[in-house]
C-alpha cells in the first residue's frame, strides 16, 4: 500500500475516482448500464490509440500518422471483406500487416534520413490518407460480415461490459510487460532519454526506432479495426480526429515529449480521465464543441502540473545535495 502512494500515477488514480464519484453523485444516470457501456466502448479504442502514440513518445519522437494508418487499415479491412470476399481472420491478418508496414515505413525513413519524425509522419499522413481516399473515393464500405458486426455489439453475459474491451485490456497488459520487463522496451526508454548515451552503450538506434514505429502501426491497425466493428461500417474518415486524443492521454499521464519517460498505467489513467469527463459533458448536456475546448485545457493543465512537479523535485534534489 505504501508503495502505491509513491507511484507517479497515484494522483491520476485519485482524479479518476473522485471525478467518477462526483459525477455519479450529481447525475446518477452516469452509472446506468447503457452509459457505462458507451463509456467502456469509447475507452476501448481510445486506449489503443493512446498506446500507439505513447510508444513513439517514449523514444522522443511523435507520430502524426497514427490516425491515417488506422483509417487506411479500417478501409482495407472492410474493403477486403466486402469487395474481395476475404474471410474475417485473413482480413484481420492483412490489416495488421498493412499497419505494421506503414509503421515500418515511418521508422525506416526516419532512421535512414535522420529527419525529424514529425515531418516524415506528416508526409506519410498525407500519403496514407491519400491512398485511403484514392481507393474509396470517399465512399464507405457498408456490407460488413455479420460476425464482425456481432463482435462489435456483443456484451459479456448480462453485464454492460462490451466484448470489445477485452482486446485493449490484453494489449495494455502486454504493453506494460513490454515497456517494463523486456530488454527492447527498456532500450526504447534509454534511447528516448538520451540518444547519445544509448548509442554509447551499444543500443542500435535503427532497431529501437523501427521497432517502436512498427508497434505503433500495429496498434493503430487494431484501433482502426475496432472502430470498424463498433461503427459496423468502414468509412474513410476513421482516424481523422485521433490526433488530439492520442497526445492528450499520454501527456495527461505525465509523459514528457522529450522522450524517455512514459508509463503504460499512467497513460491508461489519462485515457480514463479524458473518457469520463467527456462523457460527463455529454450527460450534463454541455455543448459538444465544449469537449474540444475541454481537451485542450486538460492538456495545458497537465503540462503545468508536470512542470510544477519537476520544479519541486529539482528543489528537493538541491536541498539534498547541499547537505
Amino acid at each position, binding site marked *: 500500500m505504501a508503495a502505491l502512494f509513491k507511484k507517479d500515477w497515484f494522483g491520476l488514480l485519485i482524479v479518476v475516482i473522485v471525478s467518477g464519484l462526483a459525477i455519479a453523485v450529481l447525475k446518477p444516470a452516469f452509472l446506468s448500464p447503457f452509459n457505462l457501456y458507451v463509456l467502456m466502448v469509447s475507452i476501448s479504442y481510445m486506449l489503443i490509440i493512446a498506446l500507439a502514440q505513447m510508444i513513439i513518445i517514449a523514444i522522443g519522437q511523435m507520430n502524426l500518422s497514427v490516425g491515417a494508418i488506422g483509417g487506411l487499415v479500417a478501409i482495407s479491412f472492410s474493403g477486403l471483406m466486402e469487395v474481395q470476399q476475404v474471410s474475417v481472420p485473413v482480413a484481420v491478418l492483412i490489416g495488421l500487416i498493412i499497419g505494421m508496414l506503414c509503421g515500418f515505413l515511418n521508422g525506416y525513413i526516419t532512421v535512414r534520413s535522420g529527419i525529424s519524425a514529425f*515531418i516524415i509522419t506528416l508526409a506519410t499522413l*498525407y*500519403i496514407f490518407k*491519400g491512398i485511403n*481516399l484514392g481507393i474509396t473515393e470517399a465512399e464507405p464500405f457498408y456490407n460488413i460480415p455479420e460476425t464482425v458486426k456481432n463482435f462489435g455489439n456483443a456484451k459479456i453475459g448480462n453485464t454492460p461490459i462490451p466484448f470489445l474491451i477485452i482486446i485493449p485490456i490484453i494489449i495494455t497488459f502486454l504493453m506494460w510487460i513490454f515497456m517494463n520487463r523486456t530488454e527492447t522496451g527498456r532500450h526504447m526508454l534509454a534511447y528516448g532519454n538520451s540518444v547519445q548515451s544509448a548509442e554509447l552503450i551499444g543500443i542500435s538506434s535503427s532497431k529501437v526506432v523501427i521497432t517502436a514505429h512498427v508497434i505503433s502501426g500495429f496498434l493503430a491497425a487494431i484501433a482502426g479495426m475496432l472502430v470498424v466493428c463498433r461503427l459496423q461500417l468502414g468509412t474513410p474518415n476513421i482516424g*481523422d480526429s485521433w490526433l488530439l486524443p492520442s497526445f492528450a492521454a499520454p501527456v495527461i499521464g505525465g509523459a514528457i515529449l522529450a522522450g524517455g519517460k512514459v508509463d503504460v498505467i499512467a497513460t491508461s489513467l489519462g485515457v480514463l480521465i479524458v473518457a469520463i469527463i467527456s462523457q460527463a459533458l455529454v450527460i450534463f448536456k454541455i455543448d459538444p464543441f465544449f469537449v474540444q475546448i475541454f481537451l*485542450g*485545457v486538460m492538456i495545458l493543465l497537465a503540462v503545468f502540473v508536470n512542470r510544477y512537479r519537476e520544479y519541486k523535485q529539482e528543489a528537493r534534489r538541491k536541498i539534498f545535495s547541499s547537505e
Partner: protein
Amino acid sequence: MNKKIPNFIYTNQFGLLCLVLIFTLIFSTSTDGFTSRFNIFALSRVIAIDIMIGLAMMVVILTGGLNLALGAIGVCAAMFGGWCMEVLGIPIIPSILLMLGMGSFLGWINGIITVKTGVHSFVVTLATMSIYFGFMTMLTEAEAFRRLPELFTDFGSAKLFNKYVSPLLLVSVATCFALFYLFRFTDIGRKLIAAGANPEAAELSGISVNRMFIYCHMLSGFLGALAAILLTTRIGAAIPSMAGQLGMDWLLPAFLAPVIGGTLLSGGKLSVFGTMLGAVLVTLLTNGLYLLDVGEFWIRFFLGIILLLAVLLDRTREYFTLKSVIVS
C-alpha cells in the same frame, strides 16, 4: 565576383527556381489551359495565401518550435473580422487592424505558455488549437458571415496586369520583402535569428530569448491572420470550415513551403524567399496534377510524396555541400 555565382548555384533557392521553371514548362506543354489567363489568375490567388501560411509557420520554426494552432488562429481572426464588419458595422480598415490584432494576441498566448512552461510548443499549440477552434465554433454557432462589405470582397476578385494577376499576390510578395528586410537588416530580426540558432549563447550575449520567442509566436499569429484576411476576400465570406476541421488543412502547405524552402526545423535558419518559392512550387504541382486529371482523391497522396522527396533531397544536398566543404 566569380565566387558569387557558384555560391548562388549551390543554394536551395536556385534549385527551387529551376524546379519551378521545369514544372512550368512541363505543365504548359502537356496540359491545355495551364497558361490560360483564367488559370494563371486562379494560381496567383492560391499562391498568395500559401505563401502567407508558409511564412507564418516559418517564423515559429525559426525558434525550433512549431505552431499547430496556425489554422485555428486564422479561422478565429477571419470570423472575428466577419463579425466586426457584418454585425458591428466597423469600417474595413479598422476591422482589418482588429483581425491582425486578434491573430497576434492568440499567437502571444501560445508564446507566453510555451516560454513559461518550457514545454515543447507542439503540445502547447496542440492544446490551444482545440481551445481556439472550440471557442470559435461555440461563439459563432458554426454560422458563416456572408454579407461582408463589397469593397472588401472586391479586392479578392480584382485582376491586375492585363487580368493575369490577383492583387492578393502583391500583398504576399510585399510581406516577403518586409520580412526579408526585418530578418536581414534590423536589429530585432537578427536577435530573433540568434535566439533561435543558439538560445544559450544568445542569452549570454544579452538577448532576452524568451521575449524573442514570444515575438516569433506573435508574428506567426499576425501572419496567420493576414493569410486569413486574404482567404476571406478570396472566398467572399468568413466561414468556420475555411481551414478544415480544427484548421488542420493549413498544416500541409504551412510545413511544405518552409521545409522545401530550406528553413531548418531545428531552428535558427530561415529563408524568406525559399519559403516563397516553396509555396509557388507546391501550388504549381497541385494545380498541374489537377489539370493532368490525376483525380482529386490522389492529390493528397502526391503532396505527401512531394514533401517526403523534398526533405530527402534537401538532406542529400546538405550532405554533398558539407562534403565539398570538407574536401576543399
